[in-house]
């Protein structure tokens, strides 16, 4: 990879960047406010929304900053009146088809509308057909979609399963799962990455429908569904987990999640969760007990076996699902209190 520096002129100032830098990144590094909708840092540049147009000397018309690499000697203007007018008009075009999703999901169009001070659009196109799908994870509010293709590109470039498509053309153009099938019947792996890449909330977590994202608390922690250690944010409301999200640029996962990490959190509040200690009675059945009763029974049972058969007749099995602190004290219990090295976990990989 080349790390050669090249110089170009941005808004009247000379700027030095590494060769291969896009105009968008260069503009951002200098603090220039170039709006974007179809751009996402994890995806390859697309250049479809046209919000990031900048003026480039010698080019017949403005160029998309996301899709244009800086070349030595370029002269670029990132925020002329004419550019702002064109960007504002394109934003106005979006508003002619975009109907904000209900349910309190963040919507990049709000920010755009504010920046360009948009009122009612001069024309309103008819609603799209809604997308009904029996899968329980991914919902799609078609009228909020602005065809930025971020979901499609995420599926193509990151997941590489190509389960979403930008289909049709003109007024009939839509984004949909392959051939308009259910998400369950395509090559979709239900990772929900499309949701994380959607700027308007058109794609959403069905399980979290109606939960105002801004009203949630988030707690940063680590997913437990494999050894990768994805950093996740548990979104909670009224003491319950209601959604799992991940922030780009954070952790080994860089904002990506799999289907289990994003969606399989119901077990946390499942009715089957153990909520009371259980002690096996004379009848051979397990019965609810107090913690004191349970602790006493554990101490009694272990002490008895240790006295009768020695410390090495007791075995401990630690869980690879628990925290370091949990399993550290378990082996400490085995070694320093019981006095045995009989402690193992599900066999080492």
């Amino acid at each position, binding site marked *: 990879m080349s790390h050669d520096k090249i110089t170009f002129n941005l808004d009247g100032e000379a700027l030095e960047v590494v060769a291969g830098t896009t105009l968008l990144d260069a503009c951002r590094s200098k603090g220039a406010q170039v709006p974007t909708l179809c751009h996402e840092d994890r995806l390859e540049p697309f250049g479809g929304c*046209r919000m990031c147009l900048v003026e480039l000397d010698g080019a017949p*018309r403005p160029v998309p900053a996301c899709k244009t690499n800086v070349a030595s000697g370029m002269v670029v203007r990132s925020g002329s009146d004419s550019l702002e*007018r*064109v960007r504002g008009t394109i934003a106005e*075009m979006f508003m002619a088809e975009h109907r904000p999703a209900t349910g309190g999901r963040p919507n990049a169009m709000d920010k755009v509308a504010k920046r360009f001070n948009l009122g009612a659009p001069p*024309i309103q196109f008819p609603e799209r057909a809604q997308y009904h799908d029996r899968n329980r994870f991914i919902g799609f509010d078609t009228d909020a979609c602005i065809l930025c293709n971020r979901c499609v590109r995420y599926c193509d470039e990151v997941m590489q399963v190509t389960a979403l*498509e930008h289909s049709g*053309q003109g007024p009939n153009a839509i984004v949909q799962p392959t051939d308009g099938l259910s998400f369950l019947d395509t090559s979709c792996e239900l990772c929900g990455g499309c949701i994380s890449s959607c700027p308007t909330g058109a794609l959403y977590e069905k399980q979290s429908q109606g939960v105002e994202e801004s009203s949630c608390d988030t707690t940063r922690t680590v997913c437990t569904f494999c050894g990768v250690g994805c950093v996740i944010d548990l979104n909670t409301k009224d003491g319950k987990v209601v959604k799992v999200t991940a922030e780009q640029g954070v952790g080994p996962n860089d904002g990506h999640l799999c289907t289990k990490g994003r969606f399989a959190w119901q077990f946390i509040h499942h009715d089957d969760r153990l909520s009371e200690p259980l002690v096996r009675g004379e009848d051979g059945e397990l019965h609810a007990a107090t913690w004191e009763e349970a602790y006493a029974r554990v101490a009694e049972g272990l002490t008895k076996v240790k006295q009768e058969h020695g410390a090495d007749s007791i075995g401990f099995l630690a869980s690879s699902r628990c925290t370091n602190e949990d399993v550290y004290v378990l082996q400490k219990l085995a070694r320093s209190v019981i006095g045995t090295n009989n402690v193992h976990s599900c066999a080492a990989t």
Partner: protein
Amino acid sequence: MDIQRLEGLRGCGGAGFPVHIKWQAVANEATPEGGKVIVCNADEGEPGTLKDGWLLNEQPRRVLLGMQRAAAMVGAVRAYVYLRPEYTEQLRFLQVAINDLIEDGFLSPGSGAMWNGAGFPGRSVQRPGHPLPPQEMPNIAPAAATGLPLRLDIVLGGGAYICGEETALLESMEGRRPQPRHKPPYPTQSGLWGLPTLMNNVETFWWAERILSGEIETPGSHRLYSLSGDVERPGVYEAPVGITARDLIDHFGGGVVNREQISCWIPGGAASGVLPASCLDTPLSPEGLKEVGTSLGTAGVVVYAKPTQPVEVAAEIMKFFADESCSQCTPCRLGNRAFSDWISGVHEWPEPEVTERWLEAMELGSICGLGFTAPLVVRQMQRWFSEAVV
């Protein structure tokens, strides 16, 4: 250099780019592994244009020979005709011509293979089973390396207007959704499968063949005009650049049907917009048409007799553009749709300030020619038929 003999000839596909510059650009490119590529754009989709189909029926050999000359001059080893899928008759003539040229030693044996380009709805990634790029086809050695003549195959088009846009055409050939690419890089630098690619229109190759074979002395002096609409003898006519529409209609087309009065006319395909009868004496040349706000385009002249209203014609064109937008970029996708609704009366026109801004956003913000030339249709209406578009 032979390429210089083409000076004066401009591309006949609509944009009118000087042919010798394009050929020279490809000739100047280094030959990569996989070789350079020639593509003949035979996806004639511009409303009012029929000359390419006519040529492929009448003189396919000359078109192919034009491609063969181009290949020799720019150093290409393989060539493709991207054919409008409705041109089934032309396909047969093309195949016959290809077989003849194989026999005559101009094309390599095996030429004439055929596959389907992608169209809509389309996938953003290549469909499984689609042909691989030649770099990845080890069994087909580049023709130049084997000393064989040009390998020339046929790709059936994806059946959409945008497939005629050169970079959308390349995407279609590669098996993806036909969405235009961002330029630069231009196809001459990085075209089909990233190889340097010379793409010209059917008519352009035909003229190039006639020029390079010495038949024609003054390149660019004539065009093939497609004449259609309310004329007695619609057809394709070779006539000088600079002929007036009135002469074309009267001398070649036999006048207007039933000697009706002309309501309006189109000079160079739908994208060149609608002109009033008062402009019929304008020379059909780049310079002459510039005077009246438009261009020669594909030289597809369409005549509308009264009582057809100019606004009906314009509305039809805008609906066509709105429907045919590939929907990749916002200004083209939504701008055309809005103007189609406004001009046809589905929605009321907004304030002129809004109209102007939306036209500007389409002109400056679109990715390809469909988006940034469509406003011309509206602007021409504003200029010549202002009462109809307020």
